[in-house]
């Protein structure tokens, strides 16, 4: 605390001096200086990663524990099964009763309340993705169920949904691609009561970021690896005990690495953003981080990495769908109750058509996302279907966020209503890679 206020104090003093200097303008330094001041004040300092438990293998697995593939289906069907209906309802009531009321404060505080995260963990979502042999409750691959869960959770709040779901991206990845040793070391903790904070970090702070052309580098050194790079918008990074980090493995292409937060050379820097604020986003800096050979996931398999990207993208699609649904549900009563020129504004076609278009595009977003997820769990190729769903969710999701604010007019622009938060959060789906994994 004293460190930040000191830094800010120093900054203000310096700013006061600099601001009056004609030299600043002459050298064209004003913008950069102002930005440096802003960033310094806003972000503060870097800290070492959270010191967590020490992960140790508690059992020996002869082969990796995987979930069985979902059975292939012969009929077109949009009806979720009984378990999915039950789960979705449970998550939806949690989202509406607990997440939504807490969302505005969490947004302002850039953190999610502990009791909410505990309640989310108690829903048992992470356990559902972990095979029974490792203490979980999962039986088969369930990408569709994960999509339905993420969608329902985002109907409460997108950022809080990210905060709640982020650790299960790591456990899901371990179930899908971890080797016996990796699984035995890390998964039992995720199946237990106090699940560790964890995050899947792929995004880097670059314009036109391409996850297939990473700047983060991993070098093979003396039987292990050395990692260098920066990861961006990592949720709850400061309290995470375990990361999966994507880096370009020299000579091999992009790969995923298990990195414990206590590793030397790993530091966390707060990175508050336009949205996702309740997820306490941060940058993870990696400077000469030394990893054992066992840190590499799936031996840098290229298809595993692409599947990981696409399953993450489907997670963001699901969050967009849920948030867009929340927006639609919010604007309908508003435009019906708000009157102008002597009648509800919903009696005007320009307003009514905007609502209709939200409904139409939202349904398209939902169906394309479900199709890609359903293909994924049936073991069918799903890259093209994911790209299509992602494109739709990015473009239409942002449009829906914008229209929702527009329909409330000035009231949409103030924080009395949640639509401005959805406007900010929906933009994230087009920016972030990784973080989730369905």
């Amino acid at each position, binding site marked *: 605390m004293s460190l930040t206020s000191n830094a800010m104090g120093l900054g203000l003093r310096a700013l006061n001096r600099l601001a009056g200097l004609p030299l600043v303008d002459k050298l064209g330094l004003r913008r950069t200086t102002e930005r440096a001041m802003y960033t310094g004040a806003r972000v503060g300092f870097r800290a070492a990663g959270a010191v967590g438990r020490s992960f140790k293998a508690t059992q020996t697995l002869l082969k990796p524990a995987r979930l069985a593939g*979902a*059975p292939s*289906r*012969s*009929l*077109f*069907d*949009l*009806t*979720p*099964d009984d378990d*999915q209906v039950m789960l979705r309802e449970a998550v939806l009531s949690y989202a509406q009763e607990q997440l939504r009321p807490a969302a505005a404060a969490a947004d302002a505080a850039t953190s999610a309340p502990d009791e909410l995260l505990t309640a989310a963990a108690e829903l048992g979502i992470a356990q559902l993705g972990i095979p029974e042999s490792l203490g979980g409750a999962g039986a088969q691959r369930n990408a*569709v169920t994960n999509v339905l869960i993420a969608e329902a959770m985002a109907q409460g709040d997108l950022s809080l949904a990210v905060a709640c779901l982020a650790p299960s991206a790591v456990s899901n990845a371990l179930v899908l691609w971890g080797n016996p040793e990796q699984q035995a070391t890390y998964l039992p903790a995720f199946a237990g009561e106090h699940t560790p904070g964890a995050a899947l970090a792929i995004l880097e702070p670059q314009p*036109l*970021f*391409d*996850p*297939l*052309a990473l700047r983060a580098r991993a070098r093979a050194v003396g039987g292990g690896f050395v990692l260098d790079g920066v990861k961006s918008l990592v949720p709850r990074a400061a309290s995470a005990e375990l990361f999966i980090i994507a880096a370009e493995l020299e000579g091999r292409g992009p790969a995923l690495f298990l990195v414990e937060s206590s590793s030397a050379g790993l530091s966390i820097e707060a990175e508050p953003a336009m949205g996702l604020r309740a997820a306490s986003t941060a940058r993870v800096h990696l400077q000469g981080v030394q990893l054992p050979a066992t840190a590499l996931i799936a031996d840098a398999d290229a298809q595993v990495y*692409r599947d990981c*990207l*696409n399953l993450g993208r489907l997670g963001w699609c699901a969050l967009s769908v849920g948030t867009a649904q929340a927006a*639609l549900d919010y604007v*309908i009563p508003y*435009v*019906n109750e708000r009157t102008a020129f002597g009648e509800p504004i*919903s*009696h005007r*076609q320009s307003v*009514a*058509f905007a*609502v*209709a*278009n939200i*409904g*139409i*595009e939202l*349904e*398209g*977003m939902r*169906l*394309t996302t*479900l*199709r890609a997820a*359903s*293909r994924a769990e*049936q073991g*069918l190729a799903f*890259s*093209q*279907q*994911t*790209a*299509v*769903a992602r*494109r*739709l969710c990015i*473009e239409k999701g942002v449009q829906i966020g914008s229209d929702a604010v527009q329909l409330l007019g000035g009231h949409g622009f103030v924080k009395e209503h949640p639509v401005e938060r959805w406007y900010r959060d929906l933009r994230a789906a087009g920016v972030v890679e990784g973080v989730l994994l369905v």
Partner: protein
Amino acid sequence: MINLETPKKFRMLVEQAHQVAREIFRPNSRRYDLAEHEYPKELDMLGALLDGMNAGGGSEGAGAAGVRRDKLDSDGNRNGSNMSTALGAMELCWGDVGFLLTMPRQGLGNSAIASVASDEQLKRFEGRWAAMAITEPHCGSDSAAIRTTATLDGDHYVLNGDKIFVTSGERADLVVVWATLDRHAGRAAIKSFVVEKGTPGFELVRLEHKLGIRASDTAQFALRDCRVPKENLLGEPTINVEKGFAGVMQTFDNTRPLVAAMGVGLARACLDETRRILGEAGVEVDYDRPALVQSAAVAEMLRMEADYEAARLLTLQAAWMADNRKPNSLQASMAKAKAGRSCVDIALKCVELCGSVGYGESELLEKWARDAKILDIFEGTQQIQLLIVARRLLGKTSSELH
């Protein structure tokens, strides 16, 4: 279990329809686009083939008939004739929308008859080609405003009025004509009548020259004291204000997903062709890589594929709901709205991407771009679909939101 793949049992049907589209529709497309009003006689044989497919069981139809809602044969999930019809229409319109619209005995009038006729009428009109006449010179979307009158006189109704935009009006054997029993009684008085070609007082005035779907004829009729047997009225003869417009409008709930399917098929034709042409120019889509780091053409392709896929799945959803007897008016209009606007947008953009190759008559892209526009107009314009969707979502009546 959620699954959005084409059901296995319809894959054969889809393949057959695709072959018809590829081997019969495509090779004749340009010829009948240029020779507007000439009857595509190649379709006669095909009509017979489709009759056979339809007779072989309700779930195997490929054309525009058979939208009558089947009974559920079990409690479980059903993929039935609404879905197979939509899938068939997608494939056939991948070939040529104009040809699908002029398939013998697959007219919208046939849909109306199949949807609302009595068993006796079904039998009497079996095997006949039926067109549909709703629009009048002064009214289109506002079909409740029609002025054509039907007056009971003994065993006949006497019809008077003018009808335009009658698809297959010249080629069909029958025309289902909308007329009002009482111009002051509103929607509830509007009934549909099956008028036989050759009935005295029923006169073909002219055929339209159109932007697209030129293989399909579009006729104007005059009805002057045209006497129609009273047993040719479809549905209830009484004016039932409670039931209102429902009888005649029911047809639309069933045909909207079908027209959406036409747009989906046309859009895929454009995308397939553009992908081929761009591929020859060295442009390939990498679906795993962000569009923003690929070319602008790739980004456009991805955006169009996204709209296409949304339209396609919305259409299948509406058909699936009809098969499972779930009320689908909202979803049917969503599908029609999305498919109608997307197919126009996609077809026009594909022409742009392919440059003069797309714009010229050497390829079919320019024709598809002309054909597409009608799909966002007939069977309820884009604006009408948005009104229907908005009313449903907002819980508004047509008098509140119009």
